[in-house]
C-alpha cells in the first residue's frame, strides 16, 4: 500500500510541477473578473456584443463603423440627423444661417455645453476639431470646400482660414464654392467636436486611453481584446439619461456573439442575414429581432478598362437573378434595387423599375459584343463581407444561363484595399452606405476623382458635370432632377456599376431594452434608451 501511495505521490508531484506555472497565473485571472458582476449593484447596464476595432477610438483617424458604434455615445457633432432624414441642431442653438452668396455659414453654439472633463464647449474647440479632421488625413476630404483647405493640405498653413471664431459661442465657416450638403457633412461622426486642451494634451493617447466629448456617456475604459466601458455623464446637455452604463464586449466570432446573446450575456447583437431563418423560426427569439434599413447596398463595381464594352456590363447586370438571391439565399431580407440612389435620398426616382433579370437578352448582348461563345468574368469578393460571398456564390451558378463563366476570387481586407487601389480588380462585389443623407455621399465612390482609386476607371463628362451641379444648389426639386439624370447615366446607360441588392440589417435586442434604435446611417443612440 505504501508503494501505491509512493507511486501516486510521484505522479502527483510531476503533475504539480507542471501545473506550477498555472498556479502562478491564477490571481491575475480572478482580478479581472469584476466586469461581469457589475450589473448586480442595481445600475442599468446595456451590454453590446462588438468586434474589437483594434484601433484608437477616434473616427477622425479610423473610419470603421465598429469604432463609430462606440464613439457616437461619447463624442457628438454639431448637428444630428433625425429619423426622417432631416437635420437638427445638437450642439447648436439653431441650424446655421447661410449668407446670401451661399458660401458662409454662421453658427451659434448652445451655451453651457460641458465636456466630460468639466470644461465648456467653445468656438475654438470646434475650429480645433475640424482642423484636426484635416490633419488626421483619413476623412480630410470632407472639408475640401472650406476656404484654406488646399493650403493646409500642402502644408503651407496650419489652420483652416475659412473657420473663424467670432467669440466663445459664435463662429463662421466660409466655403470656397457653394456646397449644399455641407451642414449634412457636419453631422457625420468624423466631424465630432473634441475639447482642444484635453485632446492636445493626450496626443497619441487620444482614443486609446482618453476620449472626451460632449456625449451622453463617458469612456471609462477601452481594453484591447476585452471591451469598452461607458458610464453616464451626469452633466449631459441633452437631459437626463435613464441607463447608467453601456458595456461593449469584444467577441470576435459572430457565431459566438449570437450564442452569448442566447445565453443572456449580452443585450444586443448584430445578425447576419443568412441566419434569418434560424431566428425567425425560433419562438422566443423572433420577437427580439429588429431591423433597420441602412441607406446603401451592394453593387458590382466594374473595371471599365478591362470590361470596355457597356453592352457586356449590361449583360452581366441582366444575368443576375437578384430576386432569387433576395428571396432564397437571403431569405427575403433584401430587396431588388430600382436605382443606386436608395429611397429616402434626393435623386431617387420612385417610378424606376427594379433591375431586370433576362439571361436571354444578356446572351444576345454578349453575342453582339463578340462573346457569342461565352464570357469569362473574374469576380473579386472581400472575405469579410459575408453577404458579398453569398451573392458571388449564387451568381456563379446563375450566370451560366447567360453564358458567363464566373471565377470567384475571395481576398482578405488588406489585399482587397490594395487591389482596389492598384486597379487589380475586374469586377468586385462592393458595398457602400451614405455617411450623411445626401446623394452626394451616395455617389462618392463613383465620383470622377475617386474612380481611379477604386479599380473602376470610369469617367463620364456629363456625369461629372451633374455631380458638380448637384452641390451647387440647395433647391431640392432641381437637385432631384440632376441626380435622377446622373443615376440614369450611371446604371442604365453606361453601366459603370450594377446595383445588386439593398439589404435589411438585423439585430437581436433584449426585450427589456426600450427606446433604442439604429438609424439609416447606422448610428446607435442610447440617449433615450431604458431598461424595464
Amino acid at each position, binding site marked *: 500500500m505504501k508503494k501505491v501511495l509512493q507511486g501516486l505521490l510521484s505522479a502527483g508531484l510531476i503533475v504539480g510541477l507542471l501545473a506550477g506555472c498555472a498556479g502562478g497565473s491564477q490571481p491575475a485571472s480572478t482580478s479581472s473578473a469584476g466586469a461581469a458582476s457589475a450589473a448586480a449593484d442595481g445600475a442599468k447596464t446595456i451590454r453590446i456584443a462588438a468586434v474589437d476595432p483594434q484601433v484608437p477610438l477616434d473616427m477622425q483617424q479610423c*473610419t470603421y463603423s465598429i469604432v463609430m458604434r462606440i464613439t457616437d455615445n461619447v463624442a457628438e457633432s454639431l448637428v444630428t440627423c433625425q429619423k426622417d432624414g432631416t437635420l437638427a441642431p445638437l450642439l447648436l442653438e439653431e441650424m446655421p444661417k447661410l449668407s446670401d452668396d451661399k458660401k458662409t455659414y454662421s453658427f451659434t453654439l448652445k451655451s453651457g455645453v460641458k465636456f466630460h472633463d468639466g470644461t465648456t464647449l467653445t468656438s475654438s474647440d470646434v475650429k480645433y476639431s475640424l482642423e484636426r479632421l484635416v490633419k488626421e488625413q483619413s476623412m480630410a*476630404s470632407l472639408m475640401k470646400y472650406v476656404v484654406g483647405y488646399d493650403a493646409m493640405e500642402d502644408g503651407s498653413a496650419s489652420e483652416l482660414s475659412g473657420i473663424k471664431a467670432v467669440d466663445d459661442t459664435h463662429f463662421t465657416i466660409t466655403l470656397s464654392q457653394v456646397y449644399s450638403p455641407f451642414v449634412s457633412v457636419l453631422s457625420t461622426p468624423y466631424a465630432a467636436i473634441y475639447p482642444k486642451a484635453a485632446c492636445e494634451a493626450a496626443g497619441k493617447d487620444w482614443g486609446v486611453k482618453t476620449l472626451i466629448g460632449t456625449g451622453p456617456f463617458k469612456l471609462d475604459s477601452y481594453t*484591447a*481584446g476585452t471591451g469598452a466601458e461607458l458610464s453616464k455623464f451626469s452633466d449631459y446637455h441633452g437631459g437626463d439619461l435613464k441607463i447608467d452604463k453601456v458595456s461593449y464586449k469584444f467577441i470576435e466570432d459572430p457565431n459566438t456573439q449570437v450564442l452569448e446573446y442566447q445565453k443572456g450575456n449580452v443585450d444586443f447583437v448584430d445578425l447576419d442575414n443568412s441566419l434569418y431563418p434560424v431566428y425567425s423560426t425560433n419562438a422566443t427569439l423572433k420577437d427580439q429581432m429588429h431591423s433597420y434599413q441602412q441607406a446603401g447596398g451592394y453593387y458590382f463595381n466594374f473595371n471599365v478598362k478591362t470590361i470596355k464594352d457597356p453592352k457586356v456590363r449590361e449583360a452581366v447586370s441582366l444575368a443576375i437573378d437578384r430576386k432569387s438571391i433576395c428571396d432564397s439565399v437571403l431569405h427575403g431580407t433584401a430587396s431588388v434595387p430600382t436605382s443606386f440612389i436608395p429611397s429616402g435620398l434626393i435623386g431617387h426616382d420612385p417610378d424606376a423599375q427594379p433591375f431586370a433579370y433576362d439571361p436571354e437578352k444578356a446572351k444576345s448582348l454578349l453575342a453582339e459584343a463578340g462573346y457569342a461563345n461565352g464570357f469569362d468574368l473574374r469576380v473579386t469578393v472581400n472575405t469579410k463581407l459575408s453577404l458579398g460571398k453569398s451573392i458571388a456564390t449564387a451568381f456563379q451558378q446563375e450566370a451560366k444561363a447567360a453564358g458567363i463563366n464566373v471565377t470567384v476570387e475571395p481576398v482578405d481586407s488588406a489585399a482587397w484595399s490594395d487591389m482596389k487601389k492598384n486597379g487589380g480588380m475586374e469586377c468586385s462585389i462592393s458595398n457602400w452606405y451614405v455617411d450623411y443623407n445626401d446623394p452626394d455621399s451616395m455617389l462618392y465612390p463613383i465620383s470622377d476623382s475617386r474612380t481611379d482609386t477604386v479599380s473602376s476607371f470610369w469617367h463620364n463628362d456629363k456625369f461629372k458635370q451633374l455631380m458638380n451641379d448637384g452641390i451647387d444648389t440647395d433647391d431640392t426639386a432641381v437637385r432631384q432632377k440632376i441626380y435622377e439624370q446622373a443615376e440614369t447615366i450611371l446604371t442604365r446607360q453606361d453601366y459603370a456599376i450594377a446595383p445588386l441588392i439593398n439589404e435589411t440589417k438585423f439585430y437581436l435586442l433584449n426585450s427589456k431594452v426600450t427606446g433604442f434604435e439604429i438609424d439609416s446611417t447606422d448610428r446607435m443612440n442610447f440617449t433615450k434608451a431604458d431598461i424595464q
Partner: protein
Amino acid sequence: MVSYISKRIVQTAVVLLGISLVTFLLLQVVPGDPVALMLDRRADPATIAAVRHQLGLDLPLPQQYLNFVNGVIHLDLGNSYFTKAPVFASLFRAFQVTLKLASLSFLFAIVLGISCGMIAALYRGKWLDSSLMTLSIIGVSAPSFWIAIILQIIFGLKLNLLPISGFDTPIAYILPSIALGTRYAGSIARITRTSMLDVIKQDYIRTARAKGAKRRAVIIHHALKNAMIPIITLVGTELGNMLTGSMLIEKVFSIPGIGKLAVDSMSNRDLPLLEGTVMYIALVFVVVNLLVDISYAFIDPRIRYGKGAAS
C-alpha cells in the same frame, strides 16, 4: 556543456534573424497594404502617401529592415501600425492569456491522458482498454475547432453550464482548455499505455512480483515511474505548441491570445506586430527544443531503468 549551449545560442540568434527576414520579405510579396486598409473607405493616393511617410514605409526596403533589426537590438519592437500601442505591451498581454489557457489545457491533457493510459494498460485487452483507446484515437483525430464548436453548443448553450467566450473568469477557460487539450490527452494516453506495457513486460517487474508484492502496486510504482520519461519528452514539445497559442481555438472562443494576435497582425499586414509575434513564437519553439535536447543529455532512460530494477 557550456560550449555546446553557447553554440546553440548563436545558432538560435541566426535562426531568429532568418525568421525576422522571412517575415519581412513575406509581407513585401503578399498583396495587401496596411495603409490602404487603415484609411478604409476614402483612401486616396495623396493620403496614402502621407500616412506611409508617417510610418516610415516610404524608406527603401533594406533601410526599413535595418531599422527594425536595430530596434530589436535595443529591445524595441516598435509600435503597431493600427493600435499604435508598443508591440511589447500587446505581446505581453496576449502572452498572459495564452499562458493561462496553455497551463489549464496542459493540466487537463496530463491528468486525463495519464490516468486513461494507466487504466488502459492495467486492463489490457479488456473492454475498458479498447474503449479508452478508441476514445483517445478519436481525440487525436478530431479537429480541435470542431470539438470546440460541439462543446460550445452542448455545455454552453444546451446545458447552459459554462461560458462560451471570454477570458475574464477562470471558468471561461474550461471549454477552450478541453478543446485544446483533447488532442494532447489522446496522444499522452496512447504513449502512457504503450510505455507502461513495455515496462510491464520487463524482467524486473517479474522479479518484483516474485517477491510477493501486489501486482497493481508493482505496476504503478515501477511502470509509471519509467513511463514518465517518454511522456515528459512529448509534454515538453507540446507545451511549446500550446504556449504559442492556438489560432483556431482562440478564434472560436474569442480569446485574445498569441494565436489571435498572429492572425490579426497577418490579416492587417501589421508588420511590427507580426514580426514581434512570429519572433516570440519562434523563440519559444527554439528554446523548448533546446531544453528537450539538454534534458536528453541528462536523462538517459537506460540508466534509470537500471536504478529502478535495483530498488
